[in-house]
């Protein structure tokens, strides 16, 4: 841990925005957890997210920023436990970032993509799964949302899930991976596709 300190929020807002635009996606996601003011600043940047994909059961959320993506895996226990409800609080969160860049191969005279993967462990931020999803989805508007259920006998209310994502999503797709899907056809919203 570094001893470096910097009074970031004492900078003028335009400079804060300049700095935030140069940080990596998982850092820009981490910053709004620090305060409401920080969340409001990141929202104002309108960071483009191409796709958000949430998995329910063994919960995770994947945010696709184009050239890089971030995967949050919520650890529900020490023995690979799944979630039992949206209100469950994870014990910790594994964060994996994947950054794409291009390298030039002089033998083939072509550009090839290379991927740099980094992993971190964050605390649960004292938030339940639903609070995490709400928080992450509130950072920026995403064009395409996908939800996948791996739930066995568990039941979730789709309407509340859609409300959790956003009512204004251009596309919201739900896919049931296994189990009893009867409970997932409750939502009357025409914006939902199954």
């Amino acid at each position, binding site marked *: *841990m*570094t001893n*470096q*300190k*910097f*009074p*970031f*929020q*004492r*900078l*003028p807002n335009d*400079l804060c925005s*300049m*700095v*935030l635009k*140069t*940080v*990596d996606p998982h*850092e820009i996601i*981490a*910053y709004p*957890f*620090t*305060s*409401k*003011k*920080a969340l409001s600043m990141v929202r104002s940047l309108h960071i483009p997210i191409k796709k958000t994909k949430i998995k329910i059961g063994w919960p995770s959320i994947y945010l696709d920023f184009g050239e890089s993506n971030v995967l949050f895996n919520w650890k529900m226990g020490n023995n690979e436990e799944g979630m039992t409800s949206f209100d469950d609080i994870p014990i910790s969160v594994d964060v994996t970032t994947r950054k794409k860049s291009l390298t030039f191969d002089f033998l083939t005279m072509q550009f090839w993509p290379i991927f740099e993967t*980094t992993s*971190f462990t*964050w*605390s649960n*931020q004292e938030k339940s799964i639903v609070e995490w999803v709400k928080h992450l989805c509130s950072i920026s508007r995403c064009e395409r949302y996908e939800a996948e259920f791996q739930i066995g006998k568990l039941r979730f209310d789709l309407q509340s899930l859609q409300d959790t994502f956003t009512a204004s999503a251009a596309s919201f797709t739900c896919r049931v991976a296994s189990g009893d899907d009867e409970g997932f056809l409750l939502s009357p919203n025409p914006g939902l596709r199954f």
Partner: protein
Amino acid sequence: MSSTEQGTSSAAPAEPTTAPESAAAPEVPESFYYVHGKDKVVHKVSAGALQHSALIHGMISNLGYTEEQAKANPFPFENIDGDILQMVVDWCNQHKGKPTPPEDTNLPKQKEKLFDLVLAVNYLEIKELLTYCCKQVAMMVKGKSPEEIREIWMIPTDAEDEAAEKEAKKRAGKEAAGETAAAAGDAK
């Protein structure tokens, strides 16, 4: 618009230094300007180095100083500490007539001065150095968790933000009441 045109013409004398093969061309003497910060220590800086600063470049273009006039009237930057201005001047001299590389290692490494440096560079409108400074600030939180970012960037909690906001409102109210009372006194 006119200041841009003048700025372009004043950049012309710097060209022979970037093209040494045209040594046959007569060398134009470089003009110098003078700046000082809060500590009143005067720094002599070439026009070529000062071109990094859009603010100073604009001032030079608009004022049309001769070297004598410039010496007699250093540009005052009372809001910038002397050591910070020295850093900025050094950087401008090191990068005179050169584009800034993506990773600039010539910037002083004292992170405790970074905040003042960012503000000074922003005020002086030195775009390339500002970009580099912002990258430095961003690098401080590279790979950090929310808790670490809060500590490094000294982010106040929501409760602290609310208390500061209340305090600011209270102060603004008092100031407004003071101004109203003063205006009423003047009217009498």
